[in-house]
């Protein structure tokens, strides 16, 4: 993926941009920098299959919001959700924070590496499908370990489930997100464990 030399918001994004800017009082439009960066990254993902933020896109955000480019770079590099390097179609984000780690995030990461041939975090697979990153707590610890793929959380992961998921993704399917072990949302594994009967008054 080479660095593009120009960027502008397309019609679909522009509607979102206008909406985001309209949320802030006039003159304070720079507050919309986060949504705009996100819209830009999604547009690039939509058009090229790699959702990332080249410098030209950040410059465009700076121009639209009338803020110095460096201020946009500061924000974009601060948040890990913005990819300042090209990524694959599927951005595999392995949660490595303590609860996930205790529940086997190492295994999830290893399975990702094995399936994609990626050697370490931050890399993209040779076929361009996958990029592997380590992220901090995704806030879904009850169903640890968690693997986030683009916007979707796949929970209760283990090595076979990773392989199954990635195979399906590569085939172009979109497996249902959420817990992968059949539990309902964040209910206990294997069905309800408390309040099985309604206690008599």
């Amino acid at each position: 993926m080479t660095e593009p030399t120009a960027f502008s918001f397309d019609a679909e994004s522009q509607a979102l941009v206008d909406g985001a800017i309209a949320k802030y009082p006039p003159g304070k439009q720079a507050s919309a920098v986060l949504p705009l960066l996100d819209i830009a990254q999604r547009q690039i993902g939509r058009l090229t299959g790699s959702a990332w933020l080249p410098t030209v896109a950040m410059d465009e955000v700076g121009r639209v919001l009338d803020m110095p480019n460096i201020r946009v770079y500061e924000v974009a590099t601060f948040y890990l959700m913005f990819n300042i390097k090209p990524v694959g179609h599927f951005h595999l984000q392995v949660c490595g924070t303590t609860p996930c780690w205790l529940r086997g995030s190492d295994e999830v990461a290893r399975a990702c590496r094995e399936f994609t041939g990626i050697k370490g975090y931050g890399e993209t697979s040779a076929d361009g499908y996958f990029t592997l990153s380590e992220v901090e707590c995704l806030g879904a610890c009850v169903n640890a370990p968690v693997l986030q793929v683009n916007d979707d959380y796949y929970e209760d992961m283990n090595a076979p489930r990773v392989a199954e998921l990635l195979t399906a993704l590569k085939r172009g399917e979109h497996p249902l997100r959420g817990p992968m072990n059949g539990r309902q949302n964040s209910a206990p594994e294997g069905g309800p464990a408390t309040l099985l009967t309604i206690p008599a008054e």
Partner: protein
Amino acid sequence: MAKVTVDGITVEVPNGSNVLQACEAAGKEIPRFCYHERLSVAGNCRMCLVEIEKAPPKPFASCAYPVADGMVVHTDTPMVKAARRGVMEFLLINHPLDCPICDQGGECDLQDQSMGYGGDTSRYHENKRAVTNKDLGPLVKTVMTRCIHCTRCIRFSTEIAGVPEMGATARGESMEVGTYISKALSSELSGNLIDICPVGALTSKPYAFVARPWELKKTDSVDVLDAVGAAIRVDTRGSEVLRVLPRINEDVNEEWLADKSRFALDGLKRRRLDTPWVKREGKLARTTWPEAFAAIEAKLTGLSGDRIGAVAGNLCDAESMLALKHVMAALGSTNLDCRQDGAALDPSRREFFTFNTSIAGIEEADALIIIGSNPRHEAPLINARIRKRSLMGAFPIAHIGVAADLTYRHQYLGGTPQLLAGLRDGSNAFASVLRGAKKPMMIVGQGALARPDGAAILAACWALAAETGMLTPDWNGFNVLQTAAGRVAGLELGFATGKTLAQMLGGGVDLLWLLGADEFDAAAIGPNTFVVYQGHHGDRGAARADVILPGAAYTEKNGTYISTEGRVQRGALAVFPPGEAKEDWKILRAFSALIGKPLPYDNLEALRMCLVQENPLFDRLDILPHFGCSDTTGPVSVGAVGDALFEPAIENYYMTDPISRASPTMAACIEAQKHPKTPAESAMAAE
């Protein structure tokens, strides 16, 4: 006012001050890295910790904590000391131990403060963090591993310079200070980053590995590379000027210095005239002083005064201009000009050619119109003051001239002087802004005056000023922004009489004495005119000369200058002129003796007495009375205001005089401006 007790000393400080300021008022020095009195408060280095009574029992960052009446502060309790030691230990975790090869060594805040708060051994055995260096262009060298993330450089470029290019990208352990994209800094004030960086992360590229501060002799002087009159310190070792740094002068440059003034000094070593030259058979040849003088004398025989003329250049000191004026008088000539660009400056009254509001006075103004000037290039420090005022708010600014990024918000009205008419008759909307303002001001640049209709424009500008309430008994908002350090003194000394430069060219005189005059087209001098060039650089004037008399550059003589504000200041000799070169007034004094009309002064004191006799203004060193305008009669108008578009007064900021033209550093700046490096080249240059 709030009463604050610091270590038992009670002081009164204005409400809204911070605890650090209160401590300073009490004479207690507080160590700091991120706090800088001219920048916003970041409060991120935590070095300035103090203890405050009746507050939660923890150390407070004094720079970011406001004072309250009755506050009791301790700066030397065991808790404070331990806390500062802790901060220092953290700062040093990732700071390299490379002081022996660091250019900041000897003038480094971190080095100094670690003497007070650093441990004698390190408890940190892990790897230190390493950060790749950034390429910030030809002036600022980076060693980013040394950066302690104080963000002063970021705040300086955003707040003072108004060119927000520095920032902190990524976060935590990965945070890096730089421009993110590799590009040379585009501010004319970038050299100040070197001064404000408390460690050796940002240092001077041209000065890299040149000297240690304790080897240098320091001479206080004033800058002459623009007409602002910034206070400088010239650091020398032996016969070499090694660096120029700003000194604090709140009324002029505060504590900043523009890049040309700071970095053009390597031009002082190149293309110097260090011996007299005389033209023999069409070729310049080295000669001796007596022979050079004899050649001029021979040419002078039988020449009537009317056929002799003298032009003073942009860097001239008042002493040498007065001596030249006296020599010319002895020769019977009154053909003197110090306006090389032909600017229609009316010398009849000081107010017509000076910056009357004064630089500090800009902060009082409440509306500004800039006409035919780009202060960012012509006087970066004045521009910084305008920006400072602009940031305070309620300061509408309009610009007529060549459209430019002036670093502050302004309304661009257009590029033709015809707009003046609309402002005067009120049809231009900005006219009502000026009329409605209490202290409106106007800056007229040389770009508005150095043109055929300059006199008409000057008169129109003055009239506009008078009509919009800029000229009142206690406010003078009319300002001419000079670009030449010698210009105001020249006009004050009456170095603008008889034939003008234009009239002297093309054979208007038979002998033309150029005192450091290089900023006009020397090819326009008549082929039979005998040219004496007295100056320090082999530049345009010397190339056309028949006799060259080697003079002294501003760092090599004791000279008096008048800044564009009308401030009389003295530069000082820091090193001696090279080779055979002499201080300029001495050359003229020696020549006057030779022609049998010795000037009535043998030493600088006597000459300076003469200066005062010539114009009492010269007695008023360093002070600038705040004038209003008591007489609103304007300068004489000649002809009508034309409609030619304004042109820039200076072509390129980095090269405006013989010194900066000879400077490789300035050449590198222009190169960086014209041909920005590719990212790969930048990465190479950074290492």
